[in-house]
């Protein structure tokens, strides 16, 4: 047979011969980018210390990733951005006042124990950032629950430390909240803008929503988990949240406060630790919502988003096992 003049060594691989441009590191860096508005707001409200805490926890998580991969002789994956993202997300869950060893140790727990010991990216069972936070919260409860007032201080309050809206609600009730924030509208606006005590990245709902909208637009996350999560929280807050009986709760307050928004859009949607089938995702979101409200209203903690997501992470393998994707075409056995 005639041989083409410029035939040379051809590469032979099996199909498909084209690949999508999406890569894991692009996903990770884009999600990190989408947290930028929240970080900016955190620095605006809590000052440069917010930046130090963030930097430390990112450094801590990058180091932990490198360290475990070094001693277990693995390929270094520091550049894929997943450790960076974990560090950033973890920082978002810390109060600005934490002593500097907390971001370092917490990010070590997050990356080294929760992620790398399980085999690295993709194999962790729990959301690393939240597990890091749960660890430091239980370990140093005092340091993790002393909040400072945003620089442009609360109306009528100029003390250095204060409580989060949710703990005010839990300990003193709605009337105290209104007293602190002026009136209900003020309360909602302050919560929406982020003018309140809380963790670095959870306070500014508007900044988080901008980031979340970006991710939704890029299709990095889908509506399934956030929507089912938020809806469940709103409905059950309305039913059980009121002091005067059923159906008197304030869903708006519950939606805007605590770490719900960052949890629903950035934490619960973590690919690795949520079910990958849509029906499972909705179930996961509902579970998160129920547990959040249960813990917020009944348990010893004022905020339940973190524990709710971690608890649902436990159930993710069970959900995935029982809710598989629906296969195309009726089963043959069923036809006969």
């Amino acid at each position, binding site marked *: 047979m005639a041989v083409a003049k410029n035939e040379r060594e051809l590469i032979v691989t099996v199909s498909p011969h084209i690949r999508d441009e999406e890569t894991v590191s692009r996903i990770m860096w884009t999600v990190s980018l989408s947290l930028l508005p929240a970080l900016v707001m955190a620095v605006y409200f809590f000052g440069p210390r917010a930046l130090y805490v963030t930097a430390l926890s990112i450094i801590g998580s990058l180091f932990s990733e490198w360290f475990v991969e070094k001693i277990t002789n693995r390929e270094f994956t520091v550049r894929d951005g997943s450790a960076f993202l974990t560090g950033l997300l973890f920082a978002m869950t810390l109060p600005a006042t934490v002593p500097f060893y907390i971001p370092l140790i917490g990010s070590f727990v997050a990356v080294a*124990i929760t992620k790398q*010991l399980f085999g690295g990216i993709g194999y962790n069972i729990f959301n690393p950032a939240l597990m890091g936070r749960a*660890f430091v919260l*239980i*370990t*140093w*409860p005092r*340091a993790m629950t002393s909040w400072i007032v945003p620089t442009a201080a609360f109306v009528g309050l100029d003390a250095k430390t204060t409580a989060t809206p949710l703990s005010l609600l839990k300990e003193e009730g709605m009337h105290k909240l209104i007293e602190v924030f002026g009136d209900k509208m003020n309360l909602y606006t302050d919560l929406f803008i982020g003018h309140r005590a809380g963790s670095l990245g959870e306070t500014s709902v508007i900044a988080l929503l901008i980031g979340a909208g970006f991710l939704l637009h890029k299709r990095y996350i889908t509506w399934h988990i956030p929507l089912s999560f938020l809806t469940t929280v709103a409905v059950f807050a309305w039913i059980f949240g009121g002091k005067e009986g059923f159906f008197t709760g304030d869903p708006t307050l519950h939606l805007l406060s605590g770490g719900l928004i960052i949890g629903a859009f950035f934490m619960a949607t973590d690919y690795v630790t949520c079910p990958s089938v849509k029906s499972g995702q909705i179930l996961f979101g509902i579970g998160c919502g129920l547990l959040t409200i249960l813990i917020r209203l009944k348990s010893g903690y004022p905020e339940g988003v973190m524990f709710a997501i971690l608890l649902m992470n436990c159930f993710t393998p069970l959900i995935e096992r029982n809710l598989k994707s629906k296969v195309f075409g009726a089963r043959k056995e069923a036809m006969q």
Partner: protein
Amino acid sequence: MNHLQQEKVSYWGLIKNGIFKENTIFRLVISLCPSIAVTNSVRNGFLLGVAVLFVQTMVNSTVALLRNFIHPRIRLPIFMLIISGWVTVVDLLMQAYARAAYKEMGLYIEIIVAFASILARAEMFASKNKVGAAFFDGLGSGLGFLVALVLISFFRELLGRGSLWGFQIVHTKPMLIMLMPTGGFLVVGLLMGFFNWIDINFYGGKGAGGAGGH
């Protein structure tokens, strides 16, 4: 464990075997509950370890002593009876002489009765060997248990309270989590992994984390 049933067994070898090669917690991974429950302080860990050591040794000796009189068909209930008898002795002794510690860990003392390790030793070794060997086998196994408990509680108390045996050692902020279940599970898991790592890297072992058992 066939190699243990040979005629010539050195007592020292039996003890070493119990502590290292067949360490109840780290190598065989059985009788785990107390490794978490009582190890939030070195003293409790030590006390329970001693209790187990005592029960194990006595059970082994009793079983070896009576081995020719026990009908094989009903041996397990008889062993259980012997074990629960000795556990009751320890239980009552501690109730009488160590009230404070008993209050904290009474339930776990009583639960020694359900320890698979004790029954396993009685069944696999003591019922087939002479009293002396059985005694030292029990001693070794009990010591291994004791060492493991003390090791775990060492880390937990040091990190969780900054103290050892109740004496304050360091004055940093303690890590409360180490006293909680999570800390216990974590310390055991990390220690197991660490021992496996040593085994793999320095002794060419397979890093068997134990098959697990009851």
